[in-house]
Protein backbone atom coordinates (compact mmCIF):
# COMPACT_ATOMS: atom_id res chain seq x y z
CA UNK A 1 0.00 0.00 0.00
CA UNK A 2 2.68 2.53 0.95
CA UNK A 3 4.42 2.03 -2.38
CA UNK A 4 1.14 2.01 -4.32
CA UNK A 5 2.11 -1.25 -5.95
CA UNK A 6 -0.38 -2.89 -8.33
CA UNK A 7 -0.60 -6.34 -6.77
CA UNK A 8 -3.43 -8.83 -6.44
CA UNK A 9 -3.17 -10.93 -3.28
CA UNK A 10 -5.14 -14.14 -3.75
CA UNK A 11 -6.10 -15.92 -0.56
CA UNK A 12 -7.69 -19.33 -0.74
CA UNK A 13 -9.63 -19.85 2.48
CA UNK A 14 -10.32 -23.57 2.83
CA UNK A 15 -11.47 -23.48 6.44
CA UNK A 16 -8.62 -25.44 8.04
CA UNK A 17 -4.95 -25.34 8.95
CA UNK A 18 -4.34 -29.06 9.33
CA UNK A 19 -6.73 -29.80 12.23
CA UNK A 20 -7.37 -26.24 13.37
CA UNK A 21 -10.56 -24.73 11.96
CA UNK A 22 -10.80 -21.05 10.97
CA UNK A 23 -12.82 -20.31 14.12
CA UNK A 24 -9.77 -21.14 16.23
CA UNK A 25 -7.42 -19.14 13.98
CA UNK A 26 -9.10 -15.76 14.00
CA UNK A 27 -12.35 -13.96 14.67
CA UNK A 28 -14.02 -11.30 12.59
CA UNK A 29 -15.21 -11.40 9.03
CA UNK A 30 -12.80 -13.86 7.43
CA UNK A 31 -9.65 -12.68 5.67
CA UNK A 32 -11.37 -10.08 3.51
CA UNK A 33 -12.07 -7.85 6.52
CA UNK A 34 -8.34 -7.47 7.18
CA UNK A 35 -7.82 -5.62 3.91
CA UNK A 36 -9.46 -2.38 5.00
CA UNK A 37 -6.83 -1.98 7.70
CA UNK A 38 -4.25 -1.78 4.93
CA UNK A 39 -6.35 0.49 2.72
CA UNK A 40 -6.88 -2.35 0.26
CA UNK A 41 -10.16 -3.13 -1.44
CA UNK A 42 -11.25 -6.73 -0.96
CA UNK A 43 -13.38 -9.11 -3.00
CA UNK A 44 -14.86 -12.26 -1.51
CA UNK A 45 -15.82 -14.92 -4.05
CA UNK A 46 -17.09 -18.49 -4.16
CA UNK A 47 -13.79 -20.22 -4.73
CA UNK A 48 -15.51 -23.30 -6.11
CA UNK A 49 -17.14 -21.39 -8.98
CA UNK A 50 -14.75 -21.12 -11.89
CA UNK A 51 -16.65 -18.34 -13.63
CA UNK A 52 -17.07 -16.29 -10.47
CA UNK A 53 -13.38 -16.51 -9.65
CA UNK A 54 -12.48 -15.49 -13.19
CA UNK A 55 -14.74 -12.43 -12.96
CA UNK A 56 -13.42 -11.53 -9.49
CA UNK A 57 -9.81 -11.75 -10.66
CA UNK A 58 -10.52 -9.59 -13.73
CA UNK A 59 -12.05 -6.96 -11.50
CA UNK A 60 -9.21 -7.18 -9.00
CA UNK A 61 -6.64 -6.79 -11.76
CA UNK A 62 -8.49 -3.81 -13.19
CA UNK A 63 -8.58 -2.03 -9.83
CA UNK A 64 -4.95 -2.86 -9.08
CA UNK A 65 -3.58 -1.59 -12.36
CA UNK A 66 -5.92 1.40 -12.88
CA UNK A 67 -5.65 2.67 -9.31
CA UNK A 68 -2.10 1.42 -8.71
CA UNK A 69 -2.89 -0.24 -5.39
CA UNK A 70 -2.95 -3.71 -3.91
CA UNK A 71 -6.21 -5.68 -3.90
CA UNK A 72 -7.18 -8.72 -1.83
CA UNK A 73 -9.29 -11.56 -3.22
CA UNK A 74 -10.58 -14.10 -0.70
CA UNK A 75 -11.79 -17.26 -2.43
CA UNK A 76 -14.00 -19.34 -0.14
CA UNK A 77 -13.70 -23.09 -0.38
CA UNK A 78 -13.45 -26.19 1.77
CA UNK A 79 -10.62 -28.67 2.17
CA UNK A 80 -12.36 -31.94 1.36
CA UNK A 81 -9.24 -34.08 1.51
CA UNK A 82 -6.93 -34.73 4.42
CA UNK A 83 -4.15 -32.22 5.01
CA UNK A 84 -1.51 -34.72 3.89
CA UNK A 85 -0.97 -38.45 3.56
CA UNK A 86 -0.09 -38.46 7.28
CA UNK A 87 -3.41 -37.00 8.27
CA UNK A 88 -6.75 -38.67 9.02
CA UNK A 89 -9.10 -35.72 9.17
CA UNK A 90 -12.03 -37.78 10.47
CA UNK A 91 -10.22 -37.47 13.81
CA UNK A 92 -11.18 -33.82 14.02
CA UNK A 93 -14.25 -33.41 11.87
CA UNK A 94 -17.36 -35.37 10.99
CA UNK A 95 -17.82 -37.44 7.84
CA UNK A 96 -21.13 -35.60 7.35
CA UNK A 97 -19.30 -32.27 7.19
CA UNK A 98 -16.94 -33.62 4.52
CA UNK A 99 -19.73 -35.15 2.46
CA UNK A 100 -21.76 -31.96 2.56
CA UNK A 101 -18.80 -30.00 1.24
CA UNK A 102 -18.38 -32.44 -1.62
CA UNK A 103 -21.67 -31.17 -3.01
CA UNK A 104 -19.90 -27.93 -3.85
CA UNK A 105 -17.09 -29.68 -5.75
CA UNK A 106 -15.72 -27.17 -8.26
CA UNK A 107 -14.85 -29.82 -10.83
CA UNK A 108 -18.35 -31.30 -10.74
CA UNK A 109 -19.92 -27.86 -10.96
CA UNK A 110 -17.74 -26.92 -13.92
CA UNK A 111 -18.70 -30.16 -15.64
CA UNK A 112 -22.40 -29.50 -15.02
CA UNK A 113 -22.03 -25.97 -16.34
CA UNK A 114 -20.27 -27.10 -19.55
CA UNK A 115 -22.79 -29.89 -20.20
CA UNK A 116 -25.73 -27.54 -19.53
CA UNK A 117 -24.36 -25.19 -22.19
CA UNK A 118 -23.79 -28.13 -24.53
CA UNK A 119 -20.05 -27.47 -24.70
CA UNK A 120 -19.34 -30.88 -23.23
CA UNK A 121 -20.93 -34.30 -22.82
CA UNK A 122 -20.77 -37.37 -20.62
CA UNK A 123 -19.04 -39.56 -23.20
CA UNK A 124 -16.22 -37.07 -23.77
CA UNK A 125 -15.90 -36.77 -20.02
CA UNK A 126 -15.38 -40.51 -19.54
CA UNK A 127 -12.85 -40.56 -22.39
CA UNK A 128 -10.93 -37.56 -21.04
CA UNK A 129 -10.75 -38.99 -17.54
CA UNK A 130 -9.31 -42.21 -18.90
CA UNK A 131 -6.74 -40.38 -21.06
CA UNK A 132 -5.65 -38.14 -18.21
CA UNK A 133 -5.49 -41.03 -15.78
CA UNK A 134 -3.22 -42.99 -18.10
CA UNK A 135 -1.08 -39.90 -18.70
CA UNK A 136 -0.58 -39.30 -14.98
CA UNK A 137 0.24 -42.95 -14.29
CA UNK A 138 2.74 -42.90 -17.14
CA UNK A 139 4.36 -39.73 -15.77
CA UNK A 140 4.67 -41.38 -12.35
CA UNK A 141 6.28 -44.41 -13.98
CA UNK A 142 8.79 -42.23 -15.83
CA UNK A 143 9.58 -40.24 -12.69
CA UNK A 144 10.08 -43.36 -10.60
CA UNK A 145 12.56 -44.74 -13.12
CA UNK A 146 14.72 -41.65 -12.88
CA UNK A 147 17.96 -41.79 -10.94
CA UNK A 148 17.78 -40.50 -7.43
CA UNK A 149 19.64 -37.27 -6.85
CA UNK A 150 23.25 -37.92 -5.95
CA UNK A 151 23.87 -36.79 -2.40
CA UNK A 152 27.54 -36.41 -3.11
CA UNK A 153 26.91 -33.54 -5.53
CA UNK A 154 23.38 -32.46 -4.76
CA UNK A 155 23.87 -31.82 -1.06
CA UNK A 156 26.57 -29.28 -1.85
CA UNK A 157 25.87 -27.72 -5.23
CA UNK A 158 23.99 -24.43 -5.58
CA UNK A 159 24.25 -23.52 -1.92
CA UNK A 160 26.45 -20.69 -3.17
CA UNK A 161 27.39 -19.70 -6.71
CA UNK A 162 30.72 -21.49 -6.23
CA UNK A 163 31.46 -24.25 -3.74
CA UNK A 164 33.26 -22.57 -0.81
CA UNK A 165 36.29 -24.27 0.75
CA UNK A 166 34.52 -25.48 3.86
CA UNK A 167 31.74 -27.18 1.87
CA UNK A 168 34.31 -28.67 -0.46
CA UNK A 169 36.00 -30.15 2.60
CA UNK A 170 32.71 -31.48 3.97
CA UNK A 171 31.95 -33.03 0.60
CA UNK A 172 35.35 -34.69 0.57
CA UNK A 173 34.83 -36.05 4.10
CA UNK A 174 31.45 -37.38 3.02
CA UNK A 175 32.94 -39.19 0.02
CA UNK A 176 35.67 -40.69 2.19
CA UNK A 177 33.05 -41.87 4.66
CA UNK A 178 30.99 -43.53 1.93
CA UNK A 179 34.07 -45.21 0.52
CA UNK A 180 34.99 -46.53 3.95
CA UNK A 181 31.48 -47.92 4.54
CA UNK A 182 30.28 -49.00 1.07
CA UNK A 183 27.47 -51.13 2.53
CA UNK A 184 25.82 -47.97 3.86
CA UNK A 185 25.69 -46.06 0.65
CA UNK A 186 27.57 -45.41 -2.53
CA UNK A 187 29.77 -42.47 -3.36
CA UNK A 188 28.64 -42.82 -6.97
Amino acid at each position, binding site marked *: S*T*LEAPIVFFCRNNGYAISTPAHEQFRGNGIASRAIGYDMPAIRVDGNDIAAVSIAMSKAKEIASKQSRPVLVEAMTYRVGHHSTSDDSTRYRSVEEINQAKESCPIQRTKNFLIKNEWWDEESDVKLRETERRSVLKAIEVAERRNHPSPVTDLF*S*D*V*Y*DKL*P*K*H*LEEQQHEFIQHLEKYPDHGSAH
Partner: protein
Amino acid sequence: QQTKTMSVRATRALSTGAHGAMKKMNLFTALNDGMRTAMKHDPSAVIFGEDVAFGGVFRCTMGLREEFGNDRVFNTPLCEQGIAGFAIGYASTGKTAIAEIQFADYIYPAFDQIVNEAAKFRYRSGGEYDLGGLVFRTPCGAVGHGGHYHSQSPEAYFAHTPGVKVVTPRSPYEAKGLLLASIRDPNPVIFLEPKALYRTSVEEVPEGDYMLPLEQADVMRTGTDVTVVGWGAQLKVLEKACDKAEAMGVSCELIDLRTIYPWDKETIEKSVRKTGRLVVSHEAPKTSGFGAEIAAT
Protein backbone atom coordinates in the same frame (compact mmCIF):
# COMPACT_ATOMS: atom_id res chain seq x y z
CA GLN B 1 53.93 1.43 13.89
CA GLN B 2 51.58 4.04 12.46
CA THR B 3 53.82 4.76 9.51
CA LYS B 4 53.99 1.06 8.76
CA THR B 5 50.19 0.79 8.81
CA MET B 6 49.82 3.79 6.52
CA SER B 7 52.23 2.48 3.92
CA VAL B 8 50.57 -0.93 4.02
CA ARG B 9 47.28 0.84 3.32
CA ALA B 10 48.68 2.75 0.38
CA THR B 11 50.25 -0.37 -1.09
CA ARG B 12 47.03 -2.27 -0.73
CA ALA B 13 45.01 0.55 -2.24
CA LEU B 14 47.23 0.57 -5.29
CA SER B 15 47.30 -3.19 -5.58
CA THR B 16 43.52 -3.44 -5.58
CA GLY B 17 43.45 -0.99 -8.46
CA ALA B 18 42.01 1.92 -6.51
CA HIS B 19 42.31 5.30 -8.14
CA GLY B 20 45.05 7.39 -6.56
CA ALA B 21 43.11 10.05 -4.67
CA MET B 22 42.55 9.34 -0.99
CA LYS B 23 40.37 11.17 1.51
CA LYS B 24 40.07 11.08 5.25
CA MET B 25 36.74 9.42 6.09
CA ASN B 26 35.07 7.99 9.14
CA LEU B 27 33.17 4.72 8.98
CA PHE B 28 29.75 6.10 8.05
CA THR B 29 31.27 8.37 5.40
CA ALA B 30 33.19 5.47 3.89
CA LEU B 31 30.03 3.34 3.80
CA ASN B 32 28.11 6.25 2.31
CA ASP B 33 30.79 6.57 -0.33
CA GLY B 34 30.69 2.84 -1.03
CA MET B 35 26.94 2.92 -1.52
CA ARG B 36 27.26 5.96 -3.79
CA THR B 37 29.80 4.07 -5.89
CA ALA B 38 27.57 1.02 -6.11
CA MET B 39 24.53 3.11 -7.04
CA LYS B 40 26.48 4.98 -9.74
CA HIS B 41 27.70 1.87 -11.49
CA ASP B 42 24.60 -0.29 -11.07
CA PRO B 43 21.39 1.40 -12.23
CA SER B 44 19.34 -1.43 -10.74
CA ALA B 45 20.65 -0.78 -7.22
CA VAL B 46 18.21 0.58 -4.66
CA ILE B 47 18.58 1.36 -0.97
CA PHE B 48 15.72 0.98 1.46
CA GLY B 49 15.04 0.52 5.15
CA GLU B 50 13.74 2.50 8.10
CA ASP B 51 14.65 6.19 7.97
CA VAL B 52 17.18 5.85 5.15
CA ALA B 53 15.59 8.63 3.12
CA PHE B 54 16.63 11.54 5.33
CA GLY B 55 20.11 10.08 5.70
CA GLY B 56 19.66 7.36 8.29
CA VAL B 57 19.96 7.31 12.05
CA PHE B 58 23.72 6.95 11.66
CA ARG B 59 24.01 9.16 8.56
CA CYS B 60 25.14 6.24 6.39
CA THR B 61 22.69 7.17 3.61
CA MET B 62 23.19 10.95 3.69
CA GLY B 63 22.70 12.67 0.34
CA LEU B 64 21.84 9.48 -1.53
CA ARG B 65 18.17 10.26 -2.03
CA GLU B 66 19.08 13.74 -3.30
CA GLU B 67 21.53 12.23 -5.75
CA PHE B 68 19.66 9.13 -6.95
CA GLY B 69 16.02 10.04 -6.36
CA ASN B 70 12.97 8.81 -4.47
CA ASP B 71 12.62 5.71 -6.59
CA ARG B 72 16.04 4.41 -5.64
CA VAL B 73 16.38 5.53 -2.03
CA PHE B 74 13.25 5.18 0.07
CA ASN B 75 11.85 4.45 3.49
CA THR B 76 10.08 1.23 4.35
CA PRO B 77 7.44 0.70 7.00
CA LEU B 78 8.66 -0.42 10.41
CA CYS B 79 8.70 -4.11 9.60
CA GLU B 80 11.94 -6.07 9.33
CA GLN B 81 10.14 -9.12 7.99
CA GLY B 82 8.76 -6.91 5.24
CA ILE B 83 12.11 -5.24 4.53
CA ALA B 84 13.73 -8.65 4.12
CA GLY B 85 10.88 -10.13 2.09
CA PHE B 86 10.80 -7.10 -0.17
CA ALA B 87 14.59 -7.22 -0.60
CA ILE B 88 14.42 -10.91 -1.54
CA GLY B 89 11.65 -10.29 -4.06
CA TYR B 90 13.54 -7.38 -5.62
CA ALA B 91 16.85 -9.25 -5.81
CA SER B 92 15.10 -12.32 -7.24
CA THR B 93 14.54 -10.37 -10.44
CA GLY B 94 18.30 -10.02 -10.86
CA LYS B 95 18.54 -6.53 -9.42
CA THR B 96 20.62 -5.14 -6.57
CA ALA B 97 18.91 -4.62 -3.22
CA ILE B 98 20.77 -2.84 -0.43
CA ALA B 99 18.47 -3.38 2.53
CA GLU B 100 19.14 -1.72 5.85
CA ILE B 101 18.06 -3.20 9.17
CA GLN B 102 18.28 -0.26 11.54
CA PHE B 103 19.89 -2.23 14.39
CA ALA B 104 21.15 -5.81 14.26
CA ASP B 105 19.08 -6.31 17.41
CA TYR B 106 15.97 -5.98 15.21
CA ILE B 107 17.00 -8.52 12.63
CA TYR B 108 15.11 -11.40 14.23
CA PRO B 109 11.70 -10.72 12.67
CA ALA B 110 13.59 -11.04 9.38
CA PHE B 111 15.30 -14.25 10.45
CA ASP B 112 12.78 -16.55 8.77
CA GLN B 113 13.04 -14.59 5.52
CA ILE B 114 16.84 -14.68 5.66
CA VAL B 115 17.27 -18.31 6.70
CA ASN B 116 14.32 -19.98 4.97
CA GLU B 117 14.01 -17.82 1.89
CA ALA B 118 17.19 -15.89 1.09
CA ALA B 119 19.72 -18.53 2.09
CA LYS B 120 17.92 -21.33 0.27
CA PHE B 121 16.78 -19.52 -2.84
CA ARG B 122 19.55 -20.73 -5.11
CA TYR B 123 19.63 -24.25 -3.73
CA ARG B 124 15.93 -24.91 -3.84
CA SER B 125 15.67 -23.67 -7.43
CA GLY B 126 18.55 -25.89 -8.48
CA GLY B 127 20.52 -22.80 -9.43
CA GLU B 128 17.82 -21.45 -11.74
CA TYR B 129 17.28 -18.44 -9.52
CA ASP B 130 19.54 -16.60 -7.12
CA LEU B 131 19.76 -13.52 -4.96
CA GLY B 132 23.18 -12.35 -6.07
CA GLY B 133 22.38 -8.68 -5.71
CA LEU B 134 21.18 -8.89 -2.12
CA VAL B 135 22.91 -7.27 0.85
CA PHE B 136 21.55 -6.66 4.33
CA ARG B 137 23.44 -3.85 6.08
CA THR B 138 23.00 -3.46 9.81
CA PRO B 139 24.70 -1.63 12.69
CA CYS B 140 25.87 -4.02 15.40
CA GLY B 141 27.88 -4.11 18.57
CA ALA B 142 28.12 -2.37 21.90
CA VAL B 143 28.35 1.39 22.07
CA GLY B 144 28.19 1.94 25.83
CA HIS B 145 24.61 3.16 26.18
CA GLY B 146 22.90 0.68 23.88
CA GLY B 147 21.40 -1.67 26.43
CA HIS B 148 19.68 -4.93 25.48
CA TYR B 149 18.45 -3.88 22.07
CA HIS B 150 21.01 -1.54 20.53
CA SER B 151 24.17 -3.54 21.23
CA GLN B 152 23.90 -7.05 19.88
CA SER B 153 26.33 -9.03 17.74
CA PRO B 154 24.23 -11.70 16.00
CA GLU B 155 26.90 -13.04 13.63
CA ALA B 156 26.84 -16.56 15.09
CA TYR B 157 23.18 -17.11 14.19
CA PHE B 158 23.90 -16.39 10.54
CA ALA B 159 27.22 -18.23 10.47
CA HIS B 160 25.07 -21.32 11.01
CA THR B 161 23.16 -20.61 7.78
CA PRO B 162 24.64 -22.01 4.57
CA GLY B 163 23.74 -19.90 1.58
CA VAL B 164 24.54 -16.51 3.10
CA LYS B 165 27.84 -14.81 3.80
CA VAL B 166 28.58 -12.76 6.91
CA VAL B 167 31.04 -9.88 6.66
CA THR B 168 32.18 -7.21 9.12
CA PRO B 169 34.70 -4.37 8.66
CA ARG B 170 37.06 -3.00 11.28
CA SER B 171 37.69 0.45 9.77
CA PRO B 172 36.66 2.87 7.00
CA TYR B 173 39.10 1.61 4.37
CA GLU B 174 38.05 -1.97 5.07
CA ALA B 175 34.38 -1.00 5.15
CA LYS B 176 34.11 0.61 1.73
CA GLY B 177 36.08 -2.18 0.03
CA LEU B 178 34.22 -4.97 1.82
CA LEU B 179 30.83 -3.36 1.29
CA LEU B 180 31.41 -3.04 -2.46
CA ALA B 181 32.61 -6.64 -2.56
CA SER B 182 29.54 -7.73 -0.58
CA ILE B 183 27.10 -5.89 -2.83
CA ARG B 184 28.72 -7.38 -5.91
CA ASP B 185 29.18 -10.90 -4.54
CA PRO B 186 26.77 -13.29 -6.29
CA ASN B 187 25.31 -14.48 -2.98
CA PRO B 188 23.22 -12.81 -0.28
CA VAL B 189 25.48 -11.13 2.27
CA ILE B 190 24.83 -9.88 5.78
CA PHE B 191 27.08 -6.90 6.37
CA LEU B 192 27.50 -6.06 10.04
CA GLU B 193 28.68 -2.49 10.73
CA PRO B 194 30.19 -1.89 14.19
CA LYS B 195 28.27 1.20 15.31
CA ALA B 196 30.89 2.19 17.87
CA LEU B 197 33.22 2.89 14.95
CA TYR B 198 30.87 5.02 12.84
CA ARG B 199 32.33 8.30 14.05
CA THR B 200 35.43 7.26 15.93
CA SER B 201 37.23 5.23 13.28
CA VAL B 202 38.91 7.55 10.78
CA GLU B 203 41.48 6.88 8.09
CA GLU B 204 42.46 7.58 4.51
CA VAL B 205 40.13 5.89 2.06
CA PRO B 206 40.43 5.75 -1.74
CA GLU B 207 37.87 7.99 -3.42
CA GLY B 208 37.53 5.63 -6.35
CA ASP B 209 36.00 2.23 -6.82
CA TYR B 210 37.77 -0.69 -5.14
CA MET B 211 36.95 -3.95 -3.46
CA LEU B 212 38.51 -6.10 -0.79
CA PRO B 213 38.26 -9.89 -1.06
CA LEU B 214 35.61 -11.79 0.85
CA GLU B 215 36.43 -15.05 2.61
CA GLN B 216 39.94 -13.78 3.17
CA ALA B 217 41.31 -12.80 6.57
CA ASP B 218 43.75 -9.92 6.98
CA VAL B 219 46.96 -10.32 8.97
CA MET B 220 47.23 -6.93 10.64
CA ARG B 221 50.53 -7.55 12.30
CA THR B 222 52.87 -10.51 12.25
CA GLY B 223 54.23 -12.22 15.32
CA THR B 224 55.64 -15.49 16.56
CA ASP B 225 54.27 -16.33 20.00
CA VAL B 226 50.50 -16.24 19.71
CA THR B 227 47.79 -15.91 17.06
CA VAL B 228 45.09 -13.41 18.05
CA VAL B 229 41.87 -13.45 16.00
CA GLY B 230 38.98 -10.99 16.07
CA TRP B 231 36.66 -8.91 13.93
CA GLY B 232 34.90 -5.56 13.87
CA ALA B 233 35.25 -3.18 16.79
CA GLN B 234 36.94 -5.79 18.97
CA LEU B 235 40.12 -5.37 16.97
CA LYS B 236 40.64 -1.98 18.63
CA VAL B 237 40.66 -3.74 21.98
CA LEU B 238 42.87 -6.52 20.63
CA GLU B 239 45.37 -4.02 19.21
CA LYS B 240 45.78 -2.54 22.69
CA ALA B 241 46.00 -6.00 24.22
CA CYS B 242 48.69 -7.01 21.74
CA ASP B 243 50.63 -3.79 22.46
CA LYS B 244 50.51 -4.59 26.18
CA ALA B 245 51.59 -8.18 25.52
CA GLU B 246 54.42 -7.00 23.34
CA ALA B 247 55.64 -4.70 26.09
CA MET B 248 55.87 -7.86 28.20
CA GLY B 249 57.87 -9.60 25.50
CA VAL B 250 55.10 -11.59 23.80
CA SER B 251 55.12 -11.39 20.01
CA CYS B 252 51.52 -11.33 18.73
CA GLU B 253 50.18 -12.12 15.28
CA LEU B 254 46.91 -10.21 14.98
CA ILE B 255 44.35 -11.29 12.39
CA ASP B 256 41.09 -9.66 11.31
CA LEU B 257 38.76 -12.40 10.09
CA ARG B 258 36.77 -9.89 7.94
CA THR B 259 34.45 -12.53 6.52
CA ILE B 260 33.03 -14.49 9.43
CA TYR B 261 31.25 -16.98 7.23
CA PRO B 262 32.62 -18.70 5.19
CA TRP B 263 35.78 -18.03 7.16
CA ASP B 264 39.40 -18.14 6.05
CA LYS B 265 40.51 -21.23 7.91
CA GLU B 266 43.68 -21.47 5.85
CA THR B 267 45.14 -18.16 7.07
CA ILE B 268 44.32 -18.86 10.72
CA GLU B 269 45.64 -22.41 10.51
CA LYS B 270 48.88 -21.24 8.88
CA SER B 271 49.35 -18.71 11.67
CA VAL B 272 48.61 -21.16 14.49
CA ARG B 273 51.02 -23.68 13.01
CA LYS B 274 53.66 -20.97 13.32
CA THR B 275 52.84 -19.63 16.77
CA GLY B 276 51.37 -22.71 18.45
CA ARG B 277 48.80 -20.64 20.38
CA LEU B 278 45.41 -19.16 19.55
CA VAL B 279 43.26 -16.52 21.24
CA VAL B 280 39.89 -15.55 19.80
CA SER B 281 37.99 -12.61 21.22
CA HIS B 282 34.53 -11.28 20.33
CA GLU B 283 31.74 -9.20 21.83
CA ALA B 284 29.07 -11.83 21.33
CA PRO B 285 28.38 -14.35 24.12
CA LYS B 286 31.10 -16.98 24.47
CA THR B 287 28.98 -20.13 24.31
CA SER B 288 28.34 -20.98 20.67
CA GLY B 289 29.86 -17.69 19.62
CA PHE B 290 31.85 -17.80 16.44
CA GLY B 291 35.03 -18.12 18.48
CA ALA B 292 33.81 -21.58 19.46
CA GLU B 293 33.83 -22.67 15.81
CA ILE B 294 37.36 -21.39 15.32
CA ALA B 295 38.60 -22.94 18.54
CA ALA B 296 37.00 -26.28 17.71
CA THR B 297 38.54 -26.48 14.25
